[in-house]
């Protein structure tokens, strides 16, 4: 059995939970937004593969 059911969009392959173009404070806020989205995904009922995209 293979496959992820709760998928959260990260930033990019080389920087999944960060953004080197931002200053450290804004970057941490971005990381937090993605992680909070992940926590939302953990609390969601899913029946199949679901992509959780955080609001821009």
């Amino acid at each position, binding site marked *: 059995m*293979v496959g992820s*059911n709760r998928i959260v969009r990260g930033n990019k392959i080389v920087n999944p939970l960060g953004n080197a173009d931002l200053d450290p404070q804004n970057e941490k806020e971005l*990381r*937090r937004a993605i992680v909070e989205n992940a*926590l939302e995904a953990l609390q969601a009922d899913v029946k199949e593969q679901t992509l959780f995209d955080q609001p821009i």
Partner: protein
Amino acid sequence: MLRVAHYLNQFFAGIGGEEKAEIGPQVRDGFLGPGRAIQNALAGRGEIVATVICGDNYFAENIEKASEEVIRLLAPFKPDLLIAGPAFAAGRYGIACGGVCRAVINQMRIPAVTGMHEENPGLDLYRNEVYIIPTEASARGMNVAIPKMVNLALRLATKEKIGRPSEEGYFPRGLLVNEISDQTGAERVVSMLLKKLRGQSFESEVPRPNYDHVTPAPRIDDIRRAKIALVTDGGLVPKGNPDEIEMRTATRFGKYGLKGVDSLRPEDYEVRHMGYDSVFVRQDPNRLVPVDVMRDLEREGAIGKLHEEFYSTTGVANIVETMRRMGEKIAEELKASGVSGVILTST
């Protein structure tokens, strides 16, 4: 005239049913039960010199020991090849047939073939190493299975090159091997495209993957009391890579302590992964394993606790089976530690 050994379980040997499933390995001269059909199919090219029998339970519960006993019993007969079963859909029998074949291939260095239904659990366990012929689920398929098994076994014994699974009729063993085509990649792709354009049938050289469905775990009800763990396949390891995690086709994972760690420090870690440029993650490992943010959330009560270790391996050109087993082990450990949710970062 090839000397053939045949493996049967207690039922097909005519000894008994479930009640005799505990019997240990024993050997008889010549053929028994379905062995007759094998003997006929051999048509003079070989003869069954020995039939080794074992109870399904005995074998399934003592695979190593039973395999060794089977080999000891067969050795004096000096077989040139072995045929096991076929096992059809019988699970323990399939495992035994696969196990006997593998042992015989590795230790007696003779070819071995078995047959079973595609849902037999023995298939996935042994298909990498053993040639397995697809059969029906029930013994009604005996007459179709036997000639196929015999045919393949004879060819293995005479060291013929065995063609592709689809041509030869065995379950794909999974080995991806390079061959030399008579045309270059460029020639082949342009020709394939022209066929497609003309509406002609063409055969793609690469199949689509078909990953089956994983049942989703139920949601976390009370995240504020939950213990959450961080896992990654981005290859983040402590400096020096103490667990020697490979930079591709990883066979190991590591778990690294977060006790008292508020944020991952770049000087403590390195990345072993050949599939992405780790420059940003090395500058700040929290960009891969977000410990800093998780600690904030922990302090604020948004989650109950951050698990005191993060798990790491490397996701490049991996063997799916290996990763599945790693995942199972990691999940076991996390569950035992009371973790109810995981955030896994993949690169």
